[in-house]
């Protein structure tokens, strides 16, 4: 196994539908929205995160899915992909909003 500098590590488990991921160099910034998004997925039984120690910048992210057919890692991947898509949409919306504002104030 590579050293502690890996972005994502996994607490060893024999069951791929109940996994605790260790996200290095991450905080509540990604933890909170990601946990809200993943909990919203219908196949997810449980999703939650915690900061194991406040002096270390990492989070433990646990996902448990409702059946063996759904892998926890797929839920995580879906959550990250949705997070990215939310923000891409927000980016475009922000651009439009600024454009509308400058158009309205120049008249």
């Amino acid at each position: 196994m590579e050293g502690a500098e890996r972005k994502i590590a996994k607490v060893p488990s024999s069951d791929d539908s109940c996994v605790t991921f260790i996200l290095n160099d991450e905080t509540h910034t990604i933890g909170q929205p990601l946990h809200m998004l993943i909990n919203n997925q219908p196949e997810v039984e449980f999703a939650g995160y915690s900061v194991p120690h406040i002096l270390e910048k990492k989070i433990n992210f646990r996902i448990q899915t409702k059946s063996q057919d759904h892998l926890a890692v797929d839920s995580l991947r879906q959550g990250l992909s949705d997070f990215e898509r939310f923000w891409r949409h927000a980016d475009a919306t922000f651009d439009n909003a600024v454009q509308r504002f400058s158009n309205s104030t120049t008249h």
Partner: protein
Amino acid sequence: MEHFDRLKSRIIVEEHSLTNVTTGHPEERNVLKLDFFKKNFKINVLSLDESRIVFELINIEFSFVNALRRVLLSEVPTMAFDRIVILNNTSVLQDEILAQRIGLCPVKVDPDLFTERTEGTEPSEKDALEFKLHIKCEKGGKRESDRRDVTTADFVWVPLGDQANMFIEGEEPCLVDVESPIVLTKLLPGQEVDLIAQCFKSNGGDHAKFQPVATAWYKPLPQIVLKRRIAGEAARRLQSCFSPGVIDIHVENGEEVARVANPRLDTISRNVFKYDDLSDAVELSMAKDHFIFTVESTGILSPMDLVKRAIRILITKAQRMRHELNKFEDAS
């Protein structure tokens, strides 16, 4: 029906408590569903100038809004003074105090032009910016006007390597004027400050001096509903409970009557509960998915630029993690 909708999406603010706070079962949270979000998410810019932007976000989950705020504070990088070589300092401020003050001064340059410095390497044109400060206060005078303030305007940029070609004239790196140059120390006749100051790139999470925002904050949209007619002296009293502009008084049949004018300005102070006769007259609540977001820049980047960079960082964060996830799966 409207009341029920309101209940679902608002936090009711009472004198001693907040109710209806739980966001419900995650599967009911429409704002977390991408399709709903794409159709219903709106942003309206309320005000915009060189140092501040105020915009509202509608139909978004609070944890996303908080993520934006957190990134603005601690992950958008800037350049700031990180290494100061003091050649001479006979001013009344000690070396380290002067150095700390200089560190906190915002440096107006696009951080994207630089990379973060690796420990142990010599600063180069790619990761450092150098300024020189050499001021000597002329000896001899005894008047107030013979003293000299050392300010951020006294810094002189020293291009490293090829940096002179990187900037067009008039847009060279400089220190930010906050209405006027920032005073760093004051010299009496005969005193001198001579130093070389280098800037490196980092973010607010490393040290607050790298923070690109004076601050960034958000609040949920307040709503105020008057449950009954409030007139006369009570109307004036009600108006005084809220921030100016929230409640206005209009004259109806010769009487002064209170009406809600602009609830956005309210700070949800709950002052109205001070008065027993007014406590039952007002229903205060806050939206769960409608926020008013303010970003104040320190002057390094425009407020619009700051929001765009923060959003970019959030997107890249998720992207990188997904890549790592794929690599990690291939390995196991």
